[in-house]
């Protein structure tokens, strides 16, 4: 490990390798994220950023390597307590309102104390759209709604797959502010992005994923 802190990293992967039909996608790679830290996973289209996040979230099984969450081998129990995942699919029901969708997702995942779905909507700038059906929201507004779900999630590790996609400048700032606040409260975030145009102003490291699998972690 390139960095050590006195506490266990919230999320650590060692010698992680994933192949699809005997075709190597990435790895073996090592990475870790500590509390209060953001790891930006960079790389062009098709290098396996989404796959890496899905493996870390437990949606895909790695061929080799270990994943540890808070110092323990990652199982369903650890993942469901520590990991919140924002993928390309929004997990929103088109025919439900914004607030109704948040209530459903909070019912499945729980939520942080003192955080109400209505307040989360205000934070992401969707005040006034509480009852709007998701099918009537724009792509950017749907993304904001998904961000509200992350905000309500009690999990400390955020896995964000292209959170900046579809967002306007104000939205990009919003993502950065939310990540900063999340890290200040002791959380951690893994953020995939295909460019460095938007990085949260927090302690962050960059992890570049490439076809050659030259896993490099720059300080």
């Amino acid at each position, binding site marked *: 490990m390139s960095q050590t802190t006195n506490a266990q990293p919230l999320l650590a992967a060692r010698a992680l390798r994933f192949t699809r039909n005997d075709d190597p996608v990435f790895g073996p790679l090592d990475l870790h994220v500590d509390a209060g830290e953001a790891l930006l996973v960079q790389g062009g289209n098709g290098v396996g950023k989404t796959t890496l996040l899905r493996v870390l*979230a*437990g*949606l*895909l*099984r790695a061929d080799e390597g270990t994943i540890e969450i808070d110092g323990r081998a990652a199982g369903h*129990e650890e*993942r*469901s*307590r520590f*990991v*919140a*995942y924002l*993928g*390309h*699919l*929004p*997990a*929103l*029901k*088109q*025919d*439900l309102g914004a607030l*109704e969708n948040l*209530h*459903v*997702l*909070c*019912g*499945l*995942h*729980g*939520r*942080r*104390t*003192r*955080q109400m779905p209505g307040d989360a909507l205000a934070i992401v700038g969707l005040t006034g759209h509480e009852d709007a*059906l998701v099918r009537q929201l724009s792509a950017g507004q749907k993304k904001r709604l998904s961000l509200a779900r992350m905000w309500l999630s*009690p*999990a*400390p590790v955020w896995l964000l797959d292209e959170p900046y996609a579809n967002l306007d400048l104000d939205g990009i700032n919003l993502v950065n502010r939310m990540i900063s606040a999340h890290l200040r*409260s*002791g*959380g951690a975030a893994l953020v995939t992005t295909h460019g460095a145009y938007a990085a949260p102003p927090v302690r962050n490291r960059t992890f570049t994923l490439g076809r050659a699998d030259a896993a490099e972690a720059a300080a």
Partner: protein
Amino acid sequence: MNLPGPRPTLASAATALLARDLKLLWRRRGDAAQPILFALLVVALFALALGGNPELLRRVASAVLWLSVLLAGLLSLDTLFRGDAEDGSLEQWLLSPVPLAWLVAVRVFSHWLTTAFPLVLVSPLLAELMGLPHAQLPVLLASLALGTPLLSLLGAVVAALTVGMRRSGILLALLVLPLYVPVLVFGAGAVAASAQGFDASGALLLLGAGLVVSTLLAPLTAAAAIRIANS
């Protein structure tokens, strides 16, 4: 540090999912009537094709009623997990602290409640169309009440297996129909037996036993199948 609020319990997750499905049903009321209309159509077509001979209709009533319910169920089976797979809800189910098998069980129940249960409710009307003797109505209702959840649970396993495929309609039917055969035999058989003056309780008890076993095993199997389909 984040203060985690109350962890979702089995009950809270089930309530959230059920409330969601009932709201969605209300928003798309037109879709909700589809299984009923389909079953009505099948029964009406049978009656027309058999030429309005009341005696003949009465003899085949149990088979036609059961077939219409089974085919209507088959038609709506693909929607069981399809929508949740396409919008990413299944991914979030996989990441929920609540066991996936429990969420699958709740989803199968809500799907049964919104597609098959209305059919059970209107089955006396369909039975009237086919001229089923009133004395056999309780047996028909009992066989449908035990048989339709069994069909939903068996169907859930196959629907979960094929959820990763784009267009799985005919494959789904091919895979699930062999599993449906025993349910059809005992369900329609119970009504036919009582029509001939035999005791129908044997067939009904077998349906009940099948329902108990599949209630326990089908959600677990379907959950495993969803995990496979998702990776």
